[in-house]
């Protein structure tokens, strides 16, 4: 089914709103007094319902209408914000989301969905104090309640005033009877139609007989002025909500209406027609008249209308003001546009091709030795670099949205586990590539659940240890040398080194004789088939998952690292490249081949002294003393089995990643190079230490080194031990 573009926008908008609603609900659970959040939730439901009308999505309208009515009561303080209300509305949000899914798929809800629908409506109706039947019996009332004043515009067409009354709770106590005002109205005019609003009436059990809960929507025919009609309610005006909409051309009334018009950009005439000052016929006539006048003394339509005495000047001024306001807000709104992510990907691909083509041009210019040509290509490459950065920036999103989803996960899981766990989020503004964000959500969920399930102890265990009864889970993100680091930490028991080791030996993952560092032992939990939970819980103890987490992260060219302090907690750090597509590379040469390493990881380049080289050959020693620090290194020539003798002067590129340093010995340093990373074919999937390839300006291929994997290959720990022994 081909979905119409605006419906697509509606789906996206609704999902955003539901997400906001969920966040607001979770905030509300902590702080039930937060009126702004209550309003945000109400607005979300209101907007979803309102727009659903445009697409004729009746199943959404009928459901959200009930939800909205309850929210309205919450907003008015008639229904208190309780845990049950929050829980119910979380379910409501989930269900609306499901309905939106149906819209997205172009299907209508099936029978099962309707069962959920009816169940939720029944639960919502409890708070309305009236079943659906009542709502249906009083459609006039409910519509007016829900959509406010603007819809009453219809009333303008008739010759009746529209009067909306909500009497205050103390009305009876101060000796006033709402009916006496209605009777009095009949002495000044005629009540044409009245709808009694009983929505505010609580159930019999909760009702206070001396409080007034009544409201009326009245269609009133009278020759009286607005002031006179208003004066009917003089005695109750202080604590009642009274709105009077005049039927005839009353200037102030129209100005009010213009103020309340929705913020669509409209022509002056349209604004006036919409607020009822002007009929479409009158406008058309005025436009024709305006067109007939000679171009020289052509007047603005506003002036034409005033001259024709169709509209009062004050109304025109109000309309012009409104027009100006709308234009202003339109300008600020247009700071954001929604773009199909595929279009962005296409752009980034093209930028990639542009970079390669540009490099080719630079190379040719170099060969030609033409100064002017060189300058031109150099200008072009500077610009291309900027285009690349802006293109990539388009795809960068803040991680905050991903993080805040965990509010719900933590809430639900802690209820399920019966633990009180609080989530602390920091570094929400840290940006990373959208494709990375999409793929990190699942591994992150797993780590969070794992921490909650296995890491954080129950309150009974925590309190005797002097820890707060509630556990704390932290999500943090920050940028660090060309990567983004995402940390999941808990203040739980930390990893149990001995238990992990015993289990690993038991499972045959390691042998009992092996001597392993703490870090190596911790890393065993990422091995396939490992699970330490004594009782397998339905959350994270199925023994699958942590290995999958690690694989997913590696697929993103990332790494995961564990820091654990027994008794105090554990931190899992995920380190990911900022982007998967284009990087600033550093080009090096070994024999006839070229290799690229990420420039962000390059710390410095030093020469490999003849002395050090000699000892590397004689003693198989592969580290140097870098200003008193042990620097292990890898000879790329050896790693990639290049033929031929190394040159007399070799260089070491010092790389840093995740607080570790490693040197790469290369023949020559070529320089910075914008690298468009292309994935290797399936055949090379298992080649370790290579992350992809790129095409140089000359058309030849350079391999992109996967530095984190190379560090693993270098077996850093054993090199360090060797260094200790020797010194």
């Amino acid at each position, binding site marked *: 089914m081909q979905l119409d573009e605006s419906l697509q926008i509606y789906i996206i908008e609704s999902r955003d709103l539901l997400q906001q609603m969920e966040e607001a609900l979770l905030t509300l659970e902590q702080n039930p007094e937060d009126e702004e959040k209550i309003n945000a939730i109400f607005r979300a439901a209101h907007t979803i319902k309102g727009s659903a009308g445009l697409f004729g999505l009746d199943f959404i309208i009928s459901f959200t209408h009930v939800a909205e009515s309850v929210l309205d009561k919450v907003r008015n303080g008639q229904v208190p914000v309780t845990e049950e209300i929050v829980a119910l509305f979380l379910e409501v949000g989930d269900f609306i989301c499901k309905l939106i899914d149906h819209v997205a798929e172009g299907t209508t809800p099936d029978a099962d969905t309707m069962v959920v629908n009816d169940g939720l409506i029944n639960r919502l109706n409890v708070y309305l104090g009236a079943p659906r039947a009542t709502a249906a019996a009083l459609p006039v009332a409910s519509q007016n309640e829900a959509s406010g004043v603007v819809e009453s515009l219809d009333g303008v067409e008739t010759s009746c005033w529209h009067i909306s009354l909500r009497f205050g709770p103390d009305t009876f106590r101060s*000796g006033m*009877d709402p009916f*006496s005002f209605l009777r009095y109205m009949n002495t000044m005019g005629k009540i044409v139609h009245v709808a009694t609003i009983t929505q505010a009436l609580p159930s019999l059990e909760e009702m206070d007989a001396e409080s007034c809960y009544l409201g009326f929507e009245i269609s009133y025919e009278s020759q009286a002025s607005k002031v006179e009609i208003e004066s009917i309610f003089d005695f*109750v005006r*202080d604590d009642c909500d009274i709105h009077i909409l005049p039927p005839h051309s009353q200037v102030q009334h129209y100005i009010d209406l213009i103020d309340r018009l929705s913020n669509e950009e409209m022509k002056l005439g349209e604004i006036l027609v919409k607020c009822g000052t002007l009929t479409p016929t009158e406008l058309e006539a005025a436009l024709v008249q305006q067109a007939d006048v000679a171009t020289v003394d052509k007047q603005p339509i506003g002036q034409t209308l005033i001259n024709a005495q169709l509209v009062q000047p004050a109304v025109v001024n109000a309309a012009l003001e409104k027009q100006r306001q709308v234009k202003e807000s339109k300008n600020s709104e247009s700071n954001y546009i929604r773009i199909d992510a595929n279009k962005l990907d296409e752009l980034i691909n093209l930028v990639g091709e542009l970079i390669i083509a540009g490099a080719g041009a630079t190379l040719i210019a170099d060969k030609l030795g033409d100064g002017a040509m060189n300058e031109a290509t150099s200008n072009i490459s500077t610009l291309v670099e900027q285009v690349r950065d802006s293109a990539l920036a388009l795809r960068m999103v803040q991680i905050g949205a991903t993080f805040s989803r965990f509010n719900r996960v933590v809430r639900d899981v802690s209820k399920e586990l019966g633990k009180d766990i609080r989530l602390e989020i920091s570094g929400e503004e840290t940006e990373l590539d959208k494709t990375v964000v999409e793929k990190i959500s699942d591994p992150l969920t797993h780590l969070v659940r794992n921490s909650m399930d296995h890491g954080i102890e129950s309150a009974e265990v925590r309190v005797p240890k002097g820890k707060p009864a509630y556990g704390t889970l932290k999500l943090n993100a920050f940028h660090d040398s060309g990567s983004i680091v995402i940390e999941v930490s808990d203040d739980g028991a930390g990893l149990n080194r001995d238990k992990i080791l015993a289990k690993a030996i038991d499972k045959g993952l390691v042998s009992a004789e092996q001597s392993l560092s703490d870090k190596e032992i911790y890393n065993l939990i990422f091995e396939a088939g490992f699970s330490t939970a004594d009782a397998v819980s339905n959350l994270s103890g199925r023994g699958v998952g942590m290995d999958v987490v690690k694989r997913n992260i590696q697929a993103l060219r990332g790494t995961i690292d564990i820091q654990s302090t027994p008794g105090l907690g554990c931190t899992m750090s995920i380190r990911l490249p900022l982007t998967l597509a284009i990087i600033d590379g550093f080009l090096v040469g070994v024999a006839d081949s070229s290799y690229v390493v990420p420039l962000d990881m390059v710390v410095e380049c030093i020469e490999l002294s003849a002395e050090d080289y000699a000892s590397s050959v004689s003693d198989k020693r592969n580290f140097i003393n870098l200003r008193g620090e042990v620097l292990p290194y890898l000879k790329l020539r050896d790693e990639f089995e290049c033929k031929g003798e190394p040159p007399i002067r070799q260089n070491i590129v010092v790389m840093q990643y995740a607080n570790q340093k490693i040197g790469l010995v290369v023949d020559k340093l070529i320089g910075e190079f914008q690298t468009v990373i292309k994935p290797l074919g399936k055949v090379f999937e298992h080649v370790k230490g290579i992350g992809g390839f790129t095409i140089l300006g000359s058309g030849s291929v350079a391999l992109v080194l996967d530095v984190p994997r190379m560090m693993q290959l270098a077996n850093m720990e054993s090199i360090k031990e060797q260094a200790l022994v020797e010194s």
Partner: protein
Amino acid sequence: MAKTILIVDDSSSLRSVVGTALKGAGYDVIEAEDGKDALTKLNGQKIHLIISDVNMPNMNGIEFLKASKQIPAYKFTPVIMLTTESAEDKKMQGQAGGAKAWMVKPFQPPQLLNAVSKLVLP
């Protein structure tokens, strides 16, 4: 059945003018010259509306209002308080919690009739 209005004011001319206007509109009227007098005249009988001056000797309008609200039969009886722009009256208005309907003297009888009929039609 005609509705009964109690009018409390120390000015006999005002009572007379207002009383005549109300009777002419179809209400039954009981007159009292101050709060104390009014309390004795209430006497448990059905009253649909009380119109009371604020500034009166013996028992002023505010004290009377509070006293009448203590009597179950008049707890919910609507009251129109008559007041002036004087500082003394304004000070007293501040103490009159519960009274919602005020009329500022001087007023014409039709104005009062209007106010009355918003609360109680004859």
